[in-house]
Structures are given as structure tokens and as C-alpha cells.
């Protein structure tokens, strides 16, 4: 069975785990209690290292390794920051974790905080997740009452508390250094690196930043053991990952799978219910909208970091956007270009000016005013934007469009010649199909 529910613990329990008691009954906080009673901070860090857990926010950097970059004996305070900005188009897995398994995140943060020696953690949650912030806020209060946050938690000598910090609507604040700027009360514009947050992060202090799903995976690792976890999946992609499937599928939703054991085809056609009758798979952005697009020939790619890289894309955040043959790739590209233009923070020249230019070229094409030389112009622009900026937003703006032009060049040519008609909407069909 490739679907394995670890992080989406509430699914195993069959009910939301928003009450501390429910979470404890479902085995929650066993890991924290055990770790604080029996393990040194270093040992927890070692377990994280050994588990091979990779960051689930998009970059896939091994969490244990990142945590070990924090200077050991720095006189400065250390901070743990949870990136709950989840704004990558097509991604809604953190939302489910925070809404249904809030304590799992809090427990994971306490464990990670203990591992790095942080006394305070922050959850930076996107401004639009109001309901979810309320669930988390209530969980934080319950955890404090239950002795899992605050002074000397779980009857140990370790103190750790969490501040919930709410954004106000800006995708870029998911980029870790922009997040730190925003959390420091500045405009959320990314910082020049180095220094990396591990050395000089929040308030110029050593800081570990991880995604919600990454941190929510920690209790399972500590509970079942790093070796058990590492044995799941492939060597370079251990464990499970939640994929958010959206777009032209009949059962959009989150699916947690063992990495490497499921193919894109299985995810789309079995778990997510496949396409509308009579429709053909056309394209898929498997890791959120910032990754190169895949086409039909890639359907048998196993879902893990290496296999997706080999297919020319990234696992990213696991937001898998599916488009069937009713969709127009140029129109889709335009919509993404619009997103990145709207969300560019405006700091770097290529991103600020380039995303808008991309959008305008694609808009002209969709409006039937494209020119053949625009294809070459697009290609030139990709090179002028991609790899030229401070943060990866600009690369994320280029990747899906550049790959689309490569894989679907004929369609771009056709749109230049004929424009792009609006497709038939799917929502009614989907609702009819009981999605």
C-alpha cells in the first residue's frame, strides 16, 4: 500500500485532533516526553540527522543538516521558526496539518527547539489562514496548560514557548529570509545570503526555519526511531510526503505517500480520482507552481526527489497541479506569470521588471496579438531573469513557463497564430461528479 498516513495523524485517528486529550490518546506527546526524559539535545539532533528527513517547504534540504549549522556555543539566543506561510499555488497540506493535527506541529517544534537549544519558537502563518490560526492559538493555550509549552515542559528542565505571528498577505513572506524580515516588523523582502539564518537569522541570532510539514514529521521520527523512518522510501528520499492534488482531477485533496513508491500516474489517476470522462492528461506541475511542468510522457515518474529531478522538475512543496487537454498551456503560463508579477517583492531588477514583461508578452499571445519573435524574446527573458536574483521567486516564475515552452512549443505557436479561447469551466462537472 503506497499510501501511508504518518503526518496526517488525524486520518489514522479518524477524527480531528484539536483537543489535547484526543491528541494524547492518539499517542501524541509520547515522543516529547520520552525525548526530554531520556535523550540529550544532541541525541535528538542526531536522530533528525539520521532520519534523512528533507525539508517539505520546497527546497528539500535535509533538516538535521540545517539544524547542525547553528553554532553550538554562540552566546546569542537561538530561535526556531516554523514557516506556515503556505502560499505556493497548489499547496494546501500545511493547512490540513494545522487544522487537524495542530499538536503534532507544536510537539515537533518543541522537539526541534530542544535539539537546537532554542527557548522560543515562532509560527509565521499566512494572513489568510485565520481559522487555522485560531485552531493553533487554542492548541497553544491547551499545550501551555498541559505543561507542553512554557517553563520546564513535560516535567523536564527544558523551557520552550511558541508565539503565533500572522502575516498579512504576501507570498514572498514564505521565502525564509523575507519571512524573517516580516517577523522583524519590516517589509517582507528577502535578504542577501550569506549570512544564512542558521548563523544570523531572526534578530541576527542563529535561527532554524522549517516548514510545517517538516516539523510535524518530527514526533513520528522520534517516536518510531530514525532508522525506522529512514527505511521508508528511497535512500535520498526517506519517509512520507503529503501531496496536494488540485486542478482537473475528480478528487482533489491531500494524499500522504511513501516517497518513491508511488508514481505520478497513481497519484493522479488512482488516489485523486483521475480526470473527467473523455479527458486526457496534458500537463502537471508536481511541486507547486514554481517547478518545471511535466507532460504525459512523465506520468510513470516515481514521486521522490531524485526521480522528479531526473524528469527535469522538482518535488518542491508537493502541490501537484493537474491540467487535462481542455486547458491551454499558454493561458496557464499567463496565469502563473500574473501570480509572480503580483507577488514579486520588487527588490531585484530582473524579477521586478521581468515578471511583468513575461506577463505582458503572454497576455498579448492569449489575446491573439502575439508575434513569432515573442517566442525568442521569452527565451531571452528566461535567461535574463532565471538565476540572476536574490531569492528563488524569480527562478520559480521562469521554470514553469520555460519548461512549458520547451514541452509544448507547438501550442505556443498555435496560440500566436490564433490566440487562446477560454476553456469550458470544470467546476460544475466536478461538483456533478461528487468531488
Amino acid at each position, binding site marked *: 500500500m503506497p499510501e501511508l498516513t504518518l503526518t496526517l495523524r488525524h486520518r489514522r485517528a479518524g477524527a480531528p485532533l484539536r483537543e489535547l486529550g484526543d491528541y494524547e490518546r492518539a499517542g501524541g506527546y509520547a515522543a516529547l516526553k520520552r525525548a526530554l526524559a531520556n535523550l540529550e539535545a544532541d541525541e535528538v539532533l542526531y536522530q533528525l540527522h539520521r532520519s534523512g528527513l528533507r525539508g517539505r517547504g520546497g527546497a528539500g534540504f535535509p533538516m538535521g543538516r540545517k539544524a547542525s549549522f547553528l553554532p553550538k556555543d554562540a552566546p546569542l539566543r537561538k530561535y526556531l521558526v516554523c514557516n506556515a506561510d503556505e502560499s505556493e499555488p497548489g499547496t494546501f497540506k500545511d493547512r490540513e496539518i494545522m487544522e487537524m493535527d495542530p499538536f503534532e506541529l507544536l510537539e515537533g517544534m518543541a522537539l526541534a527547539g530542544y535539539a537546537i537549544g532554542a527557548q522560543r519558537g515562532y509560527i509565521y502563518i499566512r494572513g*489568510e489562514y485565520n481559522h487555522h490560526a485560531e485552531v493553533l492559538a487554542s492548541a497553544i493555550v491547551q499545550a501551555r496548560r498541559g505543561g507542553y509549552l512554557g517553563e520546564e515542559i513535560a516535567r523536564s528542565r527544558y523551557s520552550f514557548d511558541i508565539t503565533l505571528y500572522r502575516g498579512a*498577505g504576501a507570498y514572498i513572506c514564505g521565502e525564509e529570509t523575507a519571512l524573517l524580515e516580516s517577523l522583524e516588523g519590516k517589509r517582507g523582502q528577502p535578504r542577501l545570503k550569506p549570512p544564512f539564518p542558521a548563523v544570523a537569522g531572526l534578530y541576527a541570532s542563529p535561527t532554524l526555519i522549517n516548514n510545517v510539514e517538516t516539523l510535524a514529521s518530527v514526533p513520528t521520527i522520534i517516536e518510531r526511531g530514525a532508522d525506522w523512518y529512514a527505511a521508508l522510501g528511497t535512500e535520498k528520499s526517506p519517509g512520507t510526503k503529503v501531496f496536494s492534488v488540485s486542478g482537473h482531477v475528480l478528487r482533489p485533496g491531500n494524499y500522504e505517500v511513501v516517497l518513491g513508491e508511488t508514481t505520478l500516474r497513481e497519484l493522479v489517476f488512482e488516489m485523486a480520482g483521475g480526470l473527467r470522462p473523455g479527458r486526457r492528461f496534458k500537463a502537471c506541475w508536481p511541486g507547486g507552481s514554481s517547478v518545471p511542468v511535466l507532460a504525459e510522457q512523465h506520468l510513470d515518474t516515481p514521486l521522490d526527489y531524485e526521480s522528479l529531478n531526473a524528469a527535469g522538475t522538482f518535488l518542491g512543496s508537493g502541490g501537484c497541479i493537474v491540467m487535462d487537454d481542455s486547458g491551454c498551456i499558454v493561458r496557464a503560463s499567463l496565469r502563473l506569470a500574473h501570480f509572480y508579477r503580483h507577488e514579486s517583492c520588487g527588490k531585484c531588477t530582473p524579477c521586478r521588471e521581468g515578471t511583468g514583461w513575461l506577463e505582458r508578452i503572454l497576455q498579448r499571445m492569449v489575446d491573439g496579438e502575439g508575434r513569432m519573435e515573442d517566442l525568442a524574446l521569452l527565451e531571452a527573458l528566461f535567461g535574463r531573469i532565471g538565476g540572476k536574483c536574490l531569492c528563488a521567486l524569480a527562478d520559480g516564475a521562469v521554470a514553469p513557463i520555460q519548461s512549458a515552452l520547451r514541452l509544448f512549443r507547438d501550442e505556443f505557436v498555435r496560440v500566436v497564430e490564433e490566440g487562446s479561447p477560454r476553456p469550458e469551466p470544470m*467546476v460544475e462537472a466536478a461538483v456533478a461528479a461528487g468531488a
Partner: protein
Amino acid sequence: MTAAEIRTHIDPMRPEFADQRSLILPALRFAQREKGYLTLDDLEAVAEATDLTPAYVEGVATFYDRLYLRPVGRWVLSVCVTLPCMLRGCDELIDHLCDRLGVPPGGTTEDGLFTLQEAQCLGACDRAPAIQVNAEDMLGPTTPEEADRLLERLREAPAPDAYVR
């Protein structure tokens, strides 16, 4: 909102931040609860409460989509227009709402009840096309008929005590 009111809200949080400038977003979000948007006076009050200049506060406030520096309606309808929602009909939904409300995207109805705005991915792609009313949980999938029912319900509903957006 006055600086004193904002202070009563942010003062308890002060110990949680090593640099008090971090209080600016909580202060702005709180100040916005009163009217649902921020006036220049509100920005000045936030500046006073956080010991920053009004220009700085305005610079921060204008960075974020969900802080409004112009009046908005009682209900701000945010319709996601990003790719996953587009694939499931958000363009038709927006057109329908524009039609019903008689305003273009970004517009506010004359009775001040509704502001219709395009939003970027709301993290609700499984409910596409998704729509969010103020900052309540996302609704969807939203067919035109459901959108009509939503408008009806909101027209009847009393104004919220505080505008959380």
C-alpha cells in the same frame, strides 16, 4: 483607532519579541479590525504605539495585500484566481459576481456591503474555485448558484463585531 487602544493590544506581547518593531504587523492587523481598513489616522496611531514614523508604517502596510489603505465593503469577497482555481472555473465565478454586484474586480458596491477582489492562491485548491469572505475559512467549490446563495446570506447577516481580514 487610537494609539492607546493599540497599545493595550500590543503591550502584553512585548516580551515575546527581542525587537519591538515586530509589533507593527500585530498592531496594523488590530487597527484594521475597527473599520475593516486603515486610514491615515490609523497608520499614525500605529506609528505612535510602535514608536516608528508614519512613513515607515505606511511602507510596511502597503507591502501586504490584506491590509487595506482604502475603504472596503463590510464583506470583502476574495476570489482566488491562481492556476488551480482557474482550471476549475474561477474566471466564470468572478464574471458572475461582477455581474451580480455590478462592480469590476477590486470594486466596492455602492451600498458598501461588498468588495470583490481577486486573490492569489488561498491554499484551498481542493475547494476550487475557492472564495473567502473577510478572513473566514475558505468556501468552495463555488458554483454560480452557490455564489448567489452566499450573497443572499451575507446581505442578511449582521455586521461583524470586528473586521478580521
